[in-house]
């Protein structure tokens, strides 16, 4: 298995290089450094200021190849800095990007961890419940509700949830954030509830499909024939054999776990990585945005390796070679 992990890591490195190259194409070839500089310094800035800014941010180098100094081009610089996690300063206000990442990671995690765990518990139990009543009216109602819930845009859940819970019912503050443990829950309650609601339809339908599919297998019939109760079949047999698709589904959420939810954080004023991304969009902060996409991809690739390895834990038939 270790040989597999090493090989997998090597292939992932190639993928990371691919991601970096795509980012280079996007941020250094498609965009003109002059435009970035002009947006940062302002339309009416004197040419010297423009040049100085480009110099400070490394946008003045040749794109691919520097005749005098082969290691000093934007391409080399981009790869070297990203691979050594030296992200430099923001394009918009020159704060070090690392400082932003450090300040944003905590708030993001404090929102995404409860959202993730509660979401997983809620959707899997609802999926099991609907699958338990499969081919009855409860099942049909469940599926219809899921399709209805899926058809509502996330942004409407956010507006509606905040309006109902925070404005009309006044249970929790409308927005804001305070990291002290005594009050943090009050600020996170509405975003967590809204986040849960906004993907319940999608996930429950997915898990229901997985469980119903699994329930038609032979071993389920055998268990039933031996007198095993339907609830026990679902919780002991079907759920366990469904762990592989569940894991696959979970990995997709890993980057979001750390990178935060852009929509939720920016709307509810939580100063996490999602908010930082949102601010980067509005401030034309290409350096920060670049870093975010890179880190997100990195986390996703790591997550994929983890899933592949964890398959061996949940399914003894899977052997990694």
């Amino acid at each position, binding site marked *: 298995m270790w040989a597999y992990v090493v090989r997998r890591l090597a292939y992932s490195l190639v993928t990371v290089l691919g991601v970096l190259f795509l980012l280079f194409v996007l941020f250094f070839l498609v*965009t003109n450094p002059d435009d970035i500089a002009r947006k940062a310094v302002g339309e009416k800035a004197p040419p010297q200021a423009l040049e100085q800014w480009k110099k400070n941010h490394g946008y003045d180098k040749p794109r691919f190849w520097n005749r005098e100094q082969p290691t000093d081009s934007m391409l080399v610089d981009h790869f070297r800095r990203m691979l050594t996690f030296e992200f430099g300063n923001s394009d918009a206000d020159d704060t070090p990007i690392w400082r932003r990442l450090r300040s944003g990671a905590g708030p993001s995690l404090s929102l995404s961890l409860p959202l993730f765990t509660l979401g997983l518990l809620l959707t899997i139990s609802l999926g099991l419940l609907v699958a338990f009543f499969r081919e009855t009216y409860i099942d049909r109602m469940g599926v219809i509700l899921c399709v209805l819930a899926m058809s509502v845009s996330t942004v409407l859940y956010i*507006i509606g949830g905040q309006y109902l819970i925070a404005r009309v019912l006044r249970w929790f503050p409308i927005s804001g954030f305070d990291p002290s443990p005594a009050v943090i829950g009050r600020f996170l309650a509405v975003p967590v509830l809204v986040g849960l609601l906004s993907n319940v339809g999608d996930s429950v339908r997915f898990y229901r499909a997985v469980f119903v599919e699994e329930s038609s297998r032979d071993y389920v019939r055998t268990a039933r024939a031996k007198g095993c109760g339907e609830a026990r079949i679902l919780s002991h047999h079907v759920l366990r054999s469904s762990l592989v698709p569940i894991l696959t589904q979970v990995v997709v959420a890993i980057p979001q776990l750390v990178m935060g939810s*852009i929509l939720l954080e920016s709307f509810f004023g939580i100063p996490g990585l999602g908010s930082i991304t949102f601010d980067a969009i509005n401030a034309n902060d290409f350096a920060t945005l670049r870093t975010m996409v890179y880190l997100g991809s990195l986390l996703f690739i790591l997550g994929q390796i983890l899933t592949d390895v964890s398959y061996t834990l949940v399914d003894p038939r899977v052997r990694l070679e």
Partner: protein
Amino acid sequence: MEPYLLSNAVVVALLAGLGAALVSAGRSRVWRDAGRELVRRRPIALAILLAYVAIGLLDSLAWVSGSSGGAMPGGDTVSLHKPRSAIDRLFPDDSYREKSYSAPLAEREFLGGAPLRHPGRHLLGTDILGRDVLYQTLKGARVALLVGGFTTLIVIPLALLFGVVAGYFGGRVDDVIFFLISTLASMPGLLLLIALIMVLGRGPVQVCVALGVTGWVGFARVVRGETLKLRELDYVHAARALGASDARIVLRHIVPNLMHLVVITFVLTFSGLVLSEAVLSWLGIGIDGSWGRMIDQARDELSRDPIIWWNLVSASFALFGLILAVNLLGDAVRDILDPRTLRERA
């Protein structure tokens, strides 16, 4: 040529293409039966979708009125020479504009309570600048169809090309394409989308292109897998033994057998694309005139007193109706055309 004539021509060409596709599909019994089954299973969703399409079409064909000159009473002359679509013509000109908000079917002005200038003219009220909400909502249909339809027109050829080539030829070609696919797939969707729009610039075409670039990967994977399977089937071997060229095999024997996946993907990705546009609008990088933009503009108005809800509610309902209809159709289309392959992607 005038820009509006060009856009009319594009619409007509699209319609003609759609008509031709439907006619040629109607010749084959499989597709005809599938179509009948769809109408039988989801008549209401189909009708709703057709209504949206009709509104979008009415709004897409614009023309200039024949009358030349002559100022409107109290209005400007320019508006006479602007090409206006059928939807535009249904609504009164700017000369009937309110000053600001008017609640649905209100008699008095929202702020201050002075009598409305044109009471009863705005069925769904007006927004802060006095623009008719019903008019904006109807105009949104065209944008949504554009986002969903135009983008899938980018997604499907890209995915078919790369997927079929990778699956059919295998070897080095497959390695390269698969590397491209897995690289793109490992970049988080929303972040990549944002980066693309930031880089390409803001605007309707850019948004569609960005959605297309991020959207084709998943489908290309499915196409690649299916092509790998089809390549080994007996009739493909037979065609090769008879001396058919690669191009002929791909076009005659492989691509037609992928068509059911194309139709399913078209319907299933459509709603996702429209919803993504709403998210992008929320982030400030969406398309002007979309429902997402209306929702974005209306979101702070809920906190006004008295509350302003009609903007938000009409845009939301229009969006919800379209997505629901398409989602219901998508499920039915998938069940009819392909009960198994795409299950896991649900």
